[in-house]
């Protein structure tokens, strides 16, 4: 219960303090610092774009924030909990229940059905057969692909594949969705459709959205743009004129929902 009190004090879903990530052995010549003293606070329901040139450390930052990788230095809090203290069970649990992932290269089991791909997080969570089906169908409906449930994943188009991945990211009701270049492999029309789905989720369900991208247009649709250069944050702009309106909307929606808190209470 101490956790939930802490959460009310810190209504941040992600709180990164002075993250440094160095690849390679400490003294080795090949060592490379991909993140330098990065601090970032992200509130529940925000949409954040991480922008920068290739090699600037975007993916590295995302992986660290998504608890997939440990920072070399610095501290990371997720929903008020210090990640260093979580242990591998806690980490797995948090990733499974609180986070959703969408990757540029999709990462699906091509020979499996769409439905089975979407249920994977629920299977890992150990949900019952019926919950799996129901929630997966809901998620597929949310991305407009219910009629493809029985198809093999490899038979889908690129845009459909990415929508299946979004459904998969969505299926366990996460509080944050991380998307690494989600439209990178798509043409602009299908990319726009995928974008729309992601932003709708952010707006309507209050899911925090963290998008890694090259694309200034997508970045502009986010409430917040974090620019990375050589592993450092060079600018962090909130509420661009275009998203100022959406911010209001989101905060209005977000307040009564209090997603993370509600979920924690359920468990």
């Amino acid at each position, binding site marked *: 219960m101490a956790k939930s009190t802490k959460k009310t004090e810190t209504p941040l879903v992600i709180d990164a303090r002075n993250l440094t990530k160095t690849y390679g052995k400490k003294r080795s010549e090949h060592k490379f610092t991909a993140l330098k003293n990065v601090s970032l606070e992200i509130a529940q329901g925000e949409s954040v774009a991480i922008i920068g040139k290739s090699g600037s450390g975007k993916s590295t930052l995302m992986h660290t924030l998504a608890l997939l990788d440990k920072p070399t230095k610095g501290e990371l809090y997720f929903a008020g909990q210090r990640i260093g203290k979580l242990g591998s*069970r806690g980490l797995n649990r948090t990733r499974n229940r609180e986070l959703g992932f969408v990757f540029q290269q999709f990462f699906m089991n091509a020979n499996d059905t769409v439905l089975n791909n979407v249920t*994977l997080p629920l299977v890992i969570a150990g949900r019952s057969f019926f919950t799996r089906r129901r929630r997966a169908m809901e998620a597929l409906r949310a991305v407009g692909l219910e009629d493809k449930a029985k198809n093999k994943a490899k038979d889908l188009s690129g845009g459909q594949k990415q929508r299946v991945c979004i459904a998969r990211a969505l299926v366990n009701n996460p509080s944050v969705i991380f998307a690494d270049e989600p439209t990178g492999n798509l043409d602009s029309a299908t990319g726009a459709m995928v974008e729309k789905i992601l932003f709708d989720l952010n707006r309507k369900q209050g899911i925090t959205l963290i998008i890694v991208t090259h694309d200034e247009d997508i970045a502009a649709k986010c409430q917040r743009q974090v620019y990375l250069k050589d592993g450092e944050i060079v600018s962090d702009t909130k509420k661009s004129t275009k998203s100022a309106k959406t911010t209001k909307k989101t905060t209005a929606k977000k307040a009564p929902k209090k997603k993370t808190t509600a979920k924690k209470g359920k468990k």
Partner: protein
Amino acid sequence: MNLLDIIRTANSNLFRNKLRSLLTIIAIFVGSFTIILNNGINYGVNSYVDTQVANAGGQGYLEVIKTDHELGVNIQMGPSGPTEFDPDATPIFQRITQDDLETLRGVEGVQRAIGLPMVSARYIQSYENNKRFELSLQAFPSDRLNVDMISGRMVNNNRNALEIALAPDFAEALGYTDESVLGRQVRLGIRLQQLGDTTSAPEIIRHIDVTVVGVQNRSVVGMGANFINLTTANAIQDLMLSEIPEAFRPADDFMFAIVEVDEDATDEEIAVIQELLREKGFQAMTIAEQVGMVMSIFDAITTILNVFGAIALLAASIGIVNTLFMAVQERTKEIGLMKAMGLSSSKIFLMFSSEAIMLGFWGSVVGIIAASIARVVGNNIANNTFLADLPGFTLIEFSVPSTLSIVFLIMFIAFVAGTLPARRAARQNPIDALRYE
């Protein structure tokens, strides 16, 4: 992820690269088939012999020969090859004299000791159809032995009547049925022994009439012989020697003697009596020991075949390691994804281990199926050829517990082989795995 999901995933992963899995399964199958079939034969033979030995009775029954040598499978062999002839040493086999029988009777625990006369007849002749048939004739050693009968009873050694228990098929050949032959007289043609060179002399045949008291079923104890009681055996022996003058008759001694001890004697008590007999220069063996001597050779063959099976399995487990390493390599991204989604390392380990166990499982299932087919075919061939005269002998028989334990053993071996690749999979870092090209 619960256990069922893990097993289901492992199983479906197995069918993803069908050819590779199939080849590994075939490798396991070679080993499992060899071992399962081999044990099936061993079980079939052993259970037949066991029932035969159990049916043969023989409690408190010992067959005795007189020798100073340790009995081995091949009696003439010493520890280092054939025993050199020594004119001062006693021969390997000595005949058992009437005095010896007295000595045997004097041993503590021995209730009865008799010499078994060796007799033979030239033919058996029917009064019904007058046909004559060759036959092997044996004195029935002891009523402690049970011989399965089709009709009637076994001959009784305590009776003075001349009795015979026919071997299977004889009743019909003699013109009767197995039932109608009971109580009938049959004629035995006995060839008399003559002095001197008898090869050119005409045979002298005398007849002796005996009463049929029963017809035997086929059995290991019976071995297809026609049994007569001791009264008949002695009468035949007297008849055989009747042409030889008293002075030239061979001594009244025997190759074998039968010793009976308490029917309820335990194995330990019998061992004590055997030791007492050994001290006096006799080797005594129970039915089980005689059978055991043959069975020990058979068991050795089984063991060797099992070693071949084990070697095949060893090769197969290297195949499992190889297959799974390839699978881990192929599925690097998938493993990364599942880990990113919160699947624990221990479950990844379990998933790949289950895959290995599945390979073992399917390999042994295919082995069981193939062995079952081999069993039907093999038994069919055996029953029509070399086992035709031994009804109730199924050459290949499977025992459920031993087959199951072979399956579990193979699954365990597969698991052990799988731990190496499974550990590599479990140790993968999700990020490295996702970035893997």
